[in-house]
């Protein structure tokens, strides 16, 4: 009987039994996909982005399919942090994988307030900050596109929690490494790369945009090469662990991100297509390591051969 390979990784002090995490907004509040598999078997789960107050979301149509991709403008619809803590979190205690909450604020203060609320709650292992949203304080500019505001948000969350803080970066910037360095300096323990890429689709018959919001975030296999490139750049720019995501559909996609240097990966859009994707990736990585006689997944991470 062969010894199973060790898939465990360390993300800024957060120990994961394997590097497979479900991405925010694609795994509900954590228990919706339990009819398909046991989330306890995953490295971690990240729940739907939470705000201080409930957000109703955008008018429909909110999604449109494009070649190998999904455009969405859900509008961060969520039940709010309080309802999450009261109604959803108790059900998550049965899940043995770490639960990470993704948070979203309209102002820097809202991010700080969310961190304070989460700090008091047991059963939440870490916080992922979504900084690719419009900043009303700054007149519509996104937090995540300016290194100073990105650092400010990160610093406010870090100073209000003892839990590891992951910052999820937007790809919609000229140079993602400046943002990555800024959030690292502000105390982030890890960085997720990348959130969805802004995009559009048009119905030529009606001459209307396919999304009521006109623009949306593109995800799915269509963005994987871009996501890999951005992970590659960020890994070279910072010392803290990078979590890779963008179009991962199977374990081979996951391996590409690990080889480029991601310490863990997130499965997003694939959960919609095949709800078992994340667990199939765990099994796929296990089998791959066994086959290739790799005893520890860390031997793969950053193992990209360029010469």
């Amino acid at each position: 009987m062969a010894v199973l390979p060790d898939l465990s990784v360390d993300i800024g002090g957060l120990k994961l039994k394997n590097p497979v995490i479900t991405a925010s907004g694609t795994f509900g509040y954590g228990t919706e996909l339990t009819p398909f598999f046991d989330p306890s078997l995953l490295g971690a789960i990240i729940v739907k982005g939470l705000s201080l107050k409930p957000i109703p979301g955008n008018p429909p149509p909110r999604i449109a399919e494009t070649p190998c991709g999904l455009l969405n403008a859900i509008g961060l619809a969520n039940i709010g942090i309080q309802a999450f803590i009261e109604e959803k979190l108790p059900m998550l205690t049965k899940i043995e994988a770490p639960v990470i909450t993704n948070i979203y604020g309209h102002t820097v203060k809202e991010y700080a307030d969310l961190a304070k609320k989460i700090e008091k709650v047991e059963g939440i292992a870490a916080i992922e900050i979504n900084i690719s949203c419009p900043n009303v304080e700054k007149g519509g500019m996104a937090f995540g596109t300016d290194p100073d505001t990105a650092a400010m948000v990160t610093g406010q969350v870090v100073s209000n929690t003892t839990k590891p803080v992951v910052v999820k970066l937007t790809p919609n910037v000229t140079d993602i490494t400046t943002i990555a360095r800024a959030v690292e300096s502000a105390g982030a323990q890890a960085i997720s790369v990348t959130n969805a890429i802004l995009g559009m689709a048009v119905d030529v018959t009606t001459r209307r945009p396919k999304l009521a919001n006109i623009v949306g975030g593109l995800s799915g296999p269509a963005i994987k090469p871009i996501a890999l490139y951005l992970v590659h750049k960020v890994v070279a720019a910072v010392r803290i662990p990078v979590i890779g995501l963008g179009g991962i559909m199977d374990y081979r996609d996951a391996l590409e991100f690990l080889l480029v240097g991601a310490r863990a990966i997130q499965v997003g859009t694939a959960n919609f297509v095949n709800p078992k994707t994340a667990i199939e990736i765990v099994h796929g990585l296990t089998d791959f390591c066994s086959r290739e006689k790799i005893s520890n997944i860390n031997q793969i991470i950053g193992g990209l051969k360029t010469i």
Partner: protein
Amino acid sequence: MVEETVALKSNQQIGTNIWLMEFRSTLLASHAKPGQFLMVHLGERTKDPLLRRPFSIHGIQDGDKVMILYNVVGAGTSLLSALKEHDIISVIGPLGNGFTLPRPSEKAILVGGGTGLAPLFFLAQVLQKDQRNTVTLFLGFPTSQEVVRIQQLKDLGVNLSLTTEDGSLGIKGVVTDLLDQRLSNKGTTKPVIYACGPPPMLKTVAQKATTLSLRSYVSLEGYMACGLGICLGCAVKAAHGETKPYYYVCQDGPVFPSGMIDWEVL
């Protein structure tokens, strides 16, 4: 709810752009209720088209045969229509709430526009099995070219009336004309209305139901990525005074009491 890989029994064109697909699944057939739907993906895990497509369950036959009636409208359904007997698809279901059946004393009127017939056939199957009431079914199509499944509906024993917009079959007009006529007959019992079809048709049905204080249920479509309540793509605006701003077709529906929906924006 299950995820199953099934081999097709048949997949045939039965009208202009209209296809009927059949496969066997004891599990799905035994759990499915009229009005529920399936998320279907081509057997090979294609990345284009990427997402599953939602289809209402058209009917259950011979105990374990599941039927899907669908319109070929885009790339996904076009590829689906090319599948042959023994080809493989992946199916998740049954999903959604399904129709609330009428009480034994109530008469059911089913109103379908085009392939809105899809879930109503299953409802008619179930209601006709329960012999207490003959189901009244009004169906409307653009032309006779789109009229499908008529013999099968007659075999079920439903009381069927047809309209076509060009008058090439049945009564010339739209299906809600038939409903108008019927509702103007002051009957003894108030019927329950079940409708599926294009949004303008459903809106007309909803207005009539409100005016006459009738119970009515509409089956809605929505763009959805997962069908499982996760992507939050399939939002429909809730009527004023409802507890939520949006309902989700996949979880709160696809069948809604017509009063729950804000018809101004649908």
